[in-house]
């Protein structure tokens, strides 16, 4: 019975295997020159944590400033730089790479039974690109900051801003290159390095999600790269591609920018969906409901995601009929999104549900994604969007998706695979507490912003009319709770590295190839080459096909 094996796994657990990837080489050089995807994933986790802290501190400054209606804590320029830094660091150096480069990098080869990614050196190189680009941004911050907002709208960014736009553009360009390299590596790996018997429709949904994400990264990021090149050229060489003084069109910039930046949202959310599917199926002991539909929904979101960028421009003066088409396509995104939510819900039916911390994070994700997704419908409706565009409503909406859902899923995945990554178990009670705190802290921070936005509170305001203050204070208070919920796991996970109980190869009784490897895995992942002979999520006690 599953029950028996589970409890056995929970109680005991063998000692750590002798030769794990963590002990395969010693010294700092063995890490900085490693080609092992697992070690590179850990390198990424270090830099991601750094960027998370920088982005978080700048967010805290913004929230503190907004406690009072007057602009009193920061100067206007200081405030503008704080939210710009927050946006640039969080979008390009934290959320876009977050799950693919950390969990994805670590788990993709393990989940498909491969020894490594197809191009291990390229993998290491992309970490250096990412870290180097991050250093550039930090340098720009120290050298005086950037004040354009993360969206770099022209002609403000090209002609009027007196801040380090060039440095920021170069940094994001390089980070984009790193993203492309990782995505290319994932695509080739998934195509060519699957274990014998692991057909496309036997892949775990996390792998499918990484595949769909990689395709989006490959097709969207280059357009952003070109936009950044053009901005940099205009700043440095005076090449006036978007300059209205020469007849250039600022809306052309917005079209090109959102052609990347809308898919970027799906680049963030698709891997999170993949992670959550692994969590929910494992702790509901149930095969995912409608596996093929889940795959098609992922690919559907990836495809339609490329066709909806114009909904960021309903108030920009773009042609009215273009807006209508973009509105319709945006409504269509609801269909694959709804398939995902309903299928996760239906996966619970006839399950055997355990409320572990991983499950709680997964549930938190479903809740936040549902609310974020449904508010997306409001924004797809042109009349409502015209009212709430560029207000706190938009801020709340995309934070529900990009931060609430994605970061919750990341924490869930981190808890789920922590025993695999480190070979240790963490204190489960603390983990459950943090998961619940995160959900409520997030809602307390961002739900008031929906109300603020519909009331008409514009975003990126250093000072604001006094009637909005109550909601702003609530939001700032919530952000303190949220910060605590984000920091708490870092504390007990660090604690577990030394004092945590040792985990066996498969502490959760999970299906999936990665659990066949030791915890932590040896340098080349598997001692025996795995062979796959059945569908994923083989959780049903009866075993038969569902």
């Amino acid at each position: 019975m599953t029950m028996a094996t589970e409890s056995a796994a929970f109680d005991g657990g063998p000692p750590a295997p002798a030769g794990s990837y963590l002990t395969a080489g010693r010294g700092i050089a063995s890490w900085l020159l490693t080609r092992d995807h697992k070690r590179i994933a850990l390198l990424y986790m270090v830099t991601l944590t750094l960027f998370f802290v920088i982005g978080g501190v700048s967010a805290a400054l913004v929230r503190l400033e907004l406690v009072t209606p007057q602009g009193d804590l920061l100067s206007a320029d200081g405030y503008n730089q704080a939210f710009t830094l927050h946006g640039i660091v969080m979008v390009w150096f934290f959320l876009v790479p977050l799950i693919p480069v950390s969990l994805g990098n670590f788990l993709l080869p393990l989940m498909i039974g491969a020894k490594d990614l197809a191009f291990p050196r390229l993998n290491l190189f992309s970490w250096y690109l990412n870290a180097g680009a991050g250093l550039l941004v930090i340098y720009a911050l120290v050298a005086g900051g950037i004040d354009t907002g993360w969206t770099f709208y022209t002609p403000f960014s090209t002609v009027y801003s007196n801040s380090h736009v060039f440095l920021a553009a170069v940094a994001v360009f390089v980070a984009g290159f790193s993203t492309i390299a990782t995505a290319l590596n994932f695509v080739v790996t998934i195509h060519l390095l699957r274990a014998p018997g692991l057909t496309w429709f036997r892949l775990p949904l996390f792998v499918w999600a990484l595949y769909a994400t990689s395709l989006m990264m490959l097709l969207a990021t280059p357009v952003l790269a070109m936009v950044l090149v053009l901005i940099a050229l205009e700043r440095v060489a005076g090449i006036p591609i978007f300059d209205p003084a020469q007849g250039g069109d600022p809306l052309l910039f917005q079209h090109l920018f959102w052609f990347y930046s809308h898919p970027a949202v799906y680049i963030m959310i698709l891997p999170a969906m993949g992670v959550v599917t692994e969590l929910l199926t494992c702790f509901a002991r149930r095969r995912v409901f409608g596996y093929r539909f889940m795959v098609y929904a992922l690919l559907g979101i990836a495809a339609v995601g490329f066709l909806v960028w114009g909904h960021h421009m309903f108030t920009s003066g773009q042609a009215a009929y273009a807006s209508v088409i973009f509105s319709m396509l945006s409504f269509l995104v609801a269909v694959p999104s709804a398939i995902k939510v309903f299928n996760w819900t239906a996966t619970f039916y006839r399950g055997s549900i355990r409320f572990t911390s991983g499950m709680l994070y997964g549930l938190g994700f479903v809740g936040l994604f549902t609310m974020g997704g449904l508010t997306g419908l409001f924004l797809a409706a042109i009349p409502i969007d015209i009212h709430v565009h560029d207000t706190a409503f938009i801020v709340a909406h995309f934070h529900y998706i990009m931060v609430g859902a994605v970061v919750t899923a990341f924490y869930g995945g981190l808890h789920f695979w922590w025993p695999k990554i480190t070979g240790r178990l963490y204190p489960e009670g603390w983990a459950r507490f943090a998961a619940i705190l995160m959900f409520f802290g997030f809602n307390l921070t961002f739900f008031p912003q929906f109300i603020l936005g519909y009331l008409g509170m514009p975003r990126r305001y250093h000072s604001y009319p006094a009637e909005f203050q109550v909601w702003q204070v609530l939001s700032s208070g919530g952000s303190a709770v949220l910060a605590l919920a984000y920091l708490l796991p870092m504390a007990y996970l660090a604690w577990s590295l030394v004092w945590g109980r040792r985990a066996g190869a498969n502490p959760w009784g999970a299906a999936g190839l990665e659990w066949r490897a030791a915890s932590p895995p040896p340098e080349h992942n598997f001692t025996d080459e795995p062979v796959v002979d059945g569908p994923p999520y083989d959780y049903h006690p009866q075993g038969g096909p569902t």
Partner: protein
Amino acid sequence: MSSRPDSIRPDSIRADSIRAGHFPDLPRQRLAGELGMWVFLATEILFFGGLFTGYAVYRLQYPDAVTEAARHTDVLLGSVNTFLLLTSSLLVALAVACQDRPGLRLCRLFLGGAIALGLGFLAVKAVEYHADLAEGLVPWPGSSLPPGPQRLFFAFYWAMTGVHAVHMTVGIALLGWMFRDLRARPKLMRGTARLEVAGLYWHFVDAVWIFLYPLLYLVGRAQ
């Protein structure tokens, strides 16, 4: 095509010595290299796609100014460069085709020719840039062009040819690297898809020019 795994004669190479350990077999490794480059080229198309989109938008918005401005580009030098680049692509294709012949001399000869033509392209481009600067055919302050869309055309001229020239430089470096390895590591070159992958990149850079040439040099020459 040389991507056929069976074109590698087992007696000429020892598969294991060049196979990376995480690939199950050599054909799969070859395929990975080729697929990787194709995927990368797809991103490159999107990269240049941003520029082409911008060009198309302004061309539709200011048709007269664009044709007027395009008459200022040097069609002779542009055509010479088109010829140089197309020929170099042919040489790269020939080099890849004779990669499996017993001696690699011919292969190196073709590749060396392609590199020389690539350098020739850059030299011609430099001459052309020099003349453009002298004539003030620039979009930035100090231009001899009237303010407005004509300068936008030259903004695209400089951005497009500049980004293309950067790609040319990378391509020449890549071909140079292969040129060296054909002598230094012939087994590696024959056993893997490296030369073909480098060639793919070169053909792509060539293909981009095939689009740039009419957009920048031939527009407005019809009348």
